Protein backbone atom coordinates (compact mmCIF):
# COMPACT_ATOMS: atom_id res chain seq x y z
CA UNK A 1 0.00 0.00 0.00
CA UNK A 2 1.50 3.33 -0.97
CA UNK A 3 1.17 6.43 1.12
CA UNK A 4 -1.61 7.89 -0.92
CA UNK A 5 -3.88 4.88 -0.38
CA UNK A 6 -3.11 4.78 3.31
CA UNK A 7 -4.12 8.36 3.86
CA UNK A 8 -7.30 7.86 1.86
CA UNK A 9 -8.24 4.93 4.11
CA UNK A 10 -7.62 6.95 7.23
CA UNK A 11 -9.74 9.76 5.94
CA UNK A 12 -12.60 7.37 5.28
CA UNK A 13 -12.45 6.02 8.80
CA UNK A 14 -12.59 9.46 10.29
CA UNK A 15 -15.65 10.15 8.21
CA UNK A 16 -17.61 7.02 9.05
CA UNK A 17 -16.96 6.76 12.75
CA UNK A 18 -19.03 9.67 14.04
CA UNK A 19 -21.86 8.59 11.79
CA UNK A 20 -21.93 5.10 13.32
CA UNK A 21 -21.79 6.60 16.77
CA UNK A 22 -24.74 8.87 16.03
CA UNK A 23 -26.75 6.00 14.57
CA UNK A 24 -26.19 3.69 17.51
CA UNK A 25 -26.95 6.33 20.12
CA UNK A 26 -29.90 8.09 18.70
CA UNK A 27 -32.66 5.61 19.62
CA UNK A 28 -34.32 5.63 23.01
CA UNK A 29 -36.88 3.45 24.72
CA UNK A 30 -40.01 5.49 25.23
CA UNK A 31 -41.81 5.11 28.56
CA UNK A 32 -44.90 2.97 28.23
CA UNK A 33 -48.10 2.02 29.98
CA UNK A 34 -49.77 -1.28 29.10
CA UNK A 35 -53.31 -1.91 30.19
CA UNK A 36 -55.79 -4.61 29.40
CA UNK A 37 -59.54 -4.53 29.14
CA UNK A 38 -61.86 -7.41 28.27
CA UNK A 39 -61.67 -6.49 24.62
CA UNK A 40 -58.23 -5.06 24.01
CA UNK A 41 -54.69 -4.31 25.05
CA UNK A 42 -54.02 -0.59 25.42
CA UNK A 43 -50.44 0.57 24.92
CA UNK A 44 -49.52 4.20 25.58
CA UNK A 45 -46.08 5.63 24.90
CA UNK A 46 -44.46 9.00 25.59
CA UNK A 47 -42.84 10.14 22.37
CA UNK A 48 -42.26 13.87 22.62
CA UNK A 49 -41.40 15.52 19.32
CA UNK A 50 -42.81 12.79 17.11
CA UNK A 51 -45.46 13.58 14.49
CA UNK A 52 -48.02 11.23 12.91
CA UNK A 53 -46.13 10.74 9.68
CA UNK A 54 -43.05 9.56 11.56
CA UNK A 55 -44.59 6.68 13.51
CA UNK A 56 -44.38 3.04 12.51
CA UNK A 57 -46.17 0.24 14.31
CA UNK A 58 -45.65 -3.36 13.26
CA UNK A 59 -46.85 -6.67 14.61
CA UNK A 60 -44.79 -9.67 13.59
CA UNK A 61 -46.26 -12.85 15.11
CA UNK A 62 -46.52 -11.71 18.74
CA UNK A 63 -43.78 -9.11 18.59
CA UNK A 64 -45.03 -5.55 18.62
CA UNK A 65 -42.52 -2.96 17.45
CA UNK A 66 -43.10 0.77 17.72
CA UNK A 67 -40.81 3.28 16.16
CA UNK A 68 -41.09 7.06 16.18
CA UNK A 69 -38.66 9.46 14.61
CA UNK A 70 -38.18 13.09 15.46
CA UNK A 71 -37.50 15.82 12.95
CA UNK A 72 -33.77 16.43 13.33
CA UNK A 73 -33.99 19.47 11.06
CA UNK A 74 -35.63 21.33 13.91
CA UNK A 75 -32.31 21.26 15.72
CA UNK A 76 -29.95 21.98 12.86
CA UNK A 77 -29.55 25.71 13.41
CA UNK A 78 -29.15 25.31 17.15
CA UNK A 79 -26.04 25.26 19.27
CA UNK A 80 -26.36 23.45 22.59
CA UNK A 81 -25.26 25.45 25.60
CA UNK A 82 -26.76 23.35 28.36
CA UNK A 83 -28.24 19.85 28.21
CA UNK A 84 -30.14 17.64 30.60
CA UNK A 85 -31.69 15.28 28.11
CA UNK A 86 -30.55 13.80 24.85
CA UNK A 87 -32.58 14.11 21.71
CA UNK A 88 -33.24 11.02 19.66
CA UNK A 89 -35.67 8.73 17.95
CA UNK A 90 -37.75 6.18 19.81
CA UNK A 91 -37.99 2.44 19.41
CA UNK A 92 -39.44 -0.24 21.60
CA UNK A 93 -40.49 -3.85 21.20
CA UNK A 94 -42.96 -5.83 23.27
CA UNK A 95 -43.81 -9.52 23.23
CA UNK A 96 -47.54 -10.01 23.46
CA UNK A 97 -48.97 -13.09 25.12
CA UNK A 98 -52.35 -12.59 23.53
CA UNK A 99 -53.60 -13.16 20.02
CA UNK A 100 -54.38 -9.79 18.48
CA UNK A 101 -56.82 -8.96 15.72
CA UNK A 102 -54.30 -7.25 13.45
CA UNK A 103 -56.90 -5.61 11.24
CA UNK A 104 -58.48 -3.88 14.19
CA UNK A 105 -55.36 -2.15 15.53
CA UNK A 106 -55.89 1.57 16.05
CA UNK A 107 -53.34 4.28 16.75
CA UNK A 108 -53.69 7.92 17.71
CA UNK A 109 -50.97 10.45 18.44
CA UNK A 110 -51.69 13.58 20.45
CA UNK A 111 -49.24 16.00 22.08
CA UNK A 112 -46.39 13.52 21.80
CA UNK A 113 -48.33 10.61 23.29
CA UNK A 114 -48.97 7.54 21.14
CA UNK A 115 -52.04 5.52 22.05
CA UNK A 116 -52.46 2.04 20.58
CA UNK A 117 -55.56 -0.11 20.86
CA UNK A 118 -54.90 -3.75 20.05
CA UNK A 119 -58.19 -5.68 20.00
CA UNK A 120 -57.97 -9.26 21.18
CA UNK A 121 -59.20 -11.99 18.90
CA UNK A 122 -62.71 -13.11 19.75
CA UNK A 123 -61.58 -16.51 21.07
CA UNK A 124 -59.10 -14.79 23.41
CA UNK A 125 -61.61 -12.55 25.08
CA UNK A 126 -62.23 -13.53 28.66
CA UNK A 127 -65.36 -15.42 29.41
CA UNK A 128 -67.12 -14.68 32.63
CA UNK A 129 -67.08 -17.67 34.93
CA UNK A 130 -70.34 -18.11 36.75
CA UNK A 131 -70.23 -19.78 40.12
CA UNK A 132 -73.15 -22.09 40.52
Amino acid at each position, binding site marked *: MDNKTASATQHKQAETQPEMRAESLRYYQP*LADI*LETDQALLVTL*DMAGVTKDRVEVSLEKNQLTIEGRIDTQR*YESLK*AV*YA*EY*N*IGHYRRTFLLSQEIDREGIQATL*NDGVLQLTLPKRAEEQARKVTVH
Partner: protein
Amino acid sequence: MVGTHPRFDALWDLQSAVEQAFGSSFFGPSPWTNASPKANVFNEGDNYLVTLELPGLKKEDLNLEFKGSALRISGKRQVSLPQEASTHRRERSDYQFDRTLNFKEEIDPEKIKAELKDGVLAVLLPICESAKPKAILIG
Protein backbone atom coordinates in the same frame (compact mmCIF):
# COMPACT_ATOMS: atom_id res chain seq x y z
CA MET B 1 -31.79 9.80 6.65
CA VAL B 2 -28.05 9.31 6.67
CA GLY B 3 -25.54 11.84 7.78
CA THR B 4 -23.71 13.10 10.79
CA HIS B 5 -25.30 15.41 13.27
CA PRO B 6 -22.59 17.45 14.91
CA ARG B 7 -25.26 19.25 16.91
CA PHE B 8 -26.25 16.03 18.58
CA ASP B 9 -22.67 15.06 19.26
CA ALA B 10 -22.27 18.40 20.97
CA LEU B 11 -25.27 17.53 23.08
CA TRP B 12 -23.74 14.22 24.22
CA ASP B 13 -20.50 15.85 25.25
CA LEU B 14 -22.33 18.65 26.94
CA GLN B 15 -24.59 16.37 28.87
CA SER B 16 -21.75 14.34 30.33
CA ALA B 17 -20.02 17.57 31.28
CA VAL B 18 -23.18 18.79 32.98
CA GLU B 19 -23.61 15.47 34.76
CA GLN B 20 -20.08 15.65 36.05
CA ALA B 21 -20.49 19.20 37.23
CA PHE B 22 -23.75 18.21 38.92
CA GLY B 23 -25.48 21.48 38.37
CA SER B 24 -25.19 24.49 36.16
CA SER B 25 -25.20 28.23 36.00
CA PHE B 26 -28.76 28.12 34.70
CA PHE B 27 -30.28 26.28 37.61
CA GLY B 28 -27.88 27.03 40.43
CA PRO B 29 -26.06 24.40 42.46
CA SER B 30 -28.91 22.00 43.15
CA PRO B 31 -29.18 18.86 41.06
CA TRP B 32 -32.35 18.10 39.17
CA THR B 33 -34.50 15.19 40.16
CA ASN B 34 -36.12 12.54 38.04
CA ALA B 35 -39.49 14.02 38.75
CA SER B 36 -38.92 17.34 37.05
CA PRO B 37 -38.99 17.36 33.27
CA LYS B 38 -35.54 17.89 31.88
CA ALA B 39 -34.58 21.01 29.97
CA ASN B 40 -32.13 21.80 27.20
CA VAL B 41 -30.83 25.26 26.40
CA PHE B 42 -29.65 26.17 22.93
CA ASN B 43 -28.31 29.22 21.21
CA GLU B 44 -30.15 30.07 18.04
CA GLY B 45 -28.38 33.01 16.52
CA ASP B 46 -28.63 35.77 19.11
CA ASN B 47 -31.45 34.09 20.98
CA TYR B 48 -31.76 31.47 23.65
CA LEU B 49 -34.04 28.54 23.01
CA VAL B 50 -35.19 26.48 25.97
CA THR B 51 -36.84 23.13 25.28
CA LEU B 52 -38.60 20.71 27.61
CA GLU B 53 -40.11 17.36 26.76
CA LEU B 54 -43.64 17.40 28.12
CA PRO B 55 -45.59 14.63 26.41
CA GLY B 56 -49.30 14.74 27.06
CA LEU B 57 -49.35 18.28 28.44
CA LYS B 58 -51.67 20.91 27.05
CA LYS B 59 -51.30 24.69 27.14
CA GLU B 60 -53.67 24.86 30.09
CA ASP B 61 -51.38 22.60 32.11
CA LEU B 62 -48.49 25.06 31.89
CA ASN B 63 -47.57 28.39 33.43
CA LEU B 64 -44.74 30.52 32.15
CA GLU B 65 -43.47 33.77 33.56
CA PHE B 66 -40.42 35.92 33.14
CA LYS B 67 -39.16 38.20 35.87
CA GLY B 68 -35.85 39.99 36.18
CA SER B 69 -33.47 37.56 34.49
CA ALA B 70 -35.34 34.38 35.25
CA LEU B 71 -37.74 32.21 33.31
CA ARG B 72 -40.09 30.21 35.49
CA ILE B 73 -41.92 27.23 34.08
CA SER B 74 -44.41 25.29 36.13
CA GLY B 75 -46.93 22.67 35.21
CA LYS B 76 -48.72 19.49 35.99
CA ARG B 77 -49.22 16.21 34.22
CA GLN B 78 -52.01 13.86 35.05
CA VAL B 79 -52.11 10.61 33.19
CA SER B 80 -55.68 9.52 32.68
CA LEU B 81 -56.22 5.80 32.76
CA PRO B 82 -59.33 4.09 31.45
CA GLN B 83 -61.49 2.53 34.08
CA GLU B 84 -62.16 -1.19 33.97
CA ALA B 85 -58.65 -1.93 32.80
CA SER B 86 -56.02 -3.99 34.55
CA THR B 87 -52.43 -2.87 34.51
CA HIS B 88 -49.54 -4.79 33.00
CA ARG B 89 -47.01 -2.03 33.08
CA ARG B 90 -47.06 1.53 34.31
CA GLU B 91 -44.02 3.66 33.56
CA ARG B 92 -45.55 7.01 32.63
CA SER B 93 -45.97 8.98 35.80
CA ASP B 94 -47.95 11.96 36.99
CA TYR B 95 -45.85 14.87 37.99
CA GLN B 96 -45.88 18.46 39.05
CA PHE B 97 -42.95 20.75 38.49
CA ASP B 98 -41.74 24.27 39.00
CA ARG B 99 -38.41 25.23 37.54
CA THR B 100 -36.54 28.49 37.22
CA LEU B 101 -33.80 29.20 34.71
CA ASN B 102 -31.52 32.18 35.12
CA PHE B 103 -29.96 34.01 32.20
CA LYS B 104 -26.76 35.97 32.35
CA GLU B 105 -27.57 38.20 29.40
CA GLU B 106 -30.39 40.67 29.48
CA ILE B 107 -33.51 39.23 27.83
CA ASP B 108 -36.14 41.31 26.09
CA PRO B 109 -39.30 40.13 27.90
CA GLU B 110 -41.63 41.62 25.27
CA LYS B 111 -40.18 39.40 22.58
CA ILE B 112 -40.27 36.04 24.37
CA LYS B 113 -42.21 33.44 22.40
CA ALA B 114 -43.40 30.05 23.59
CA GLU B 115 -44.75 27.12 21.63
CA LEU B 116 -46.05 23.73 22.72
CA LYS B 117 -46.01 21.24 19.90
CA ASP B 118 -46.08 17.44 19.86
CA GLY B 119 -45.24 17.34 23.55
CA VAL B 120 -42.23 19.64 23.29
CA LEU B 121 -42.26 23.08 24.86
CA ALA B 122 -39.97 25.57 23.13
CA VAL B 123 -39.37 29.02 24.58
CA LEU B 124 -37.47 31.54 22.52
CA LEU B 125 -35.78 34.28 24.53
CA PRO B 126 -34.18 37.09 22.51
CA ILE B 127 -31.20 38.81 24.04
CA CYS B 128 -31.63 42.60 24.31
CA GLU B 129 -29.96 44.61 21.58
CA SER B 130 -28.12 46.60 24.23
CA ALA B 131 -26.70 43.43 25.78
CA LYS B 132 -25.18 42.11 22.56
CA PRO B 133 -21.46 42.56 22.06
CA LYS B 134 -20.53 45.33 19.65
CA ALA B 135 -17.42 45.67 17.59
CA ILE B 136 -15.64 48.94 18.26
CA LEU B 137 -14.07 50.67 15.33
CA ILE B 138 -10.76 52.32 15.91
CA GLY B 139 -11.14 55.88 14.78
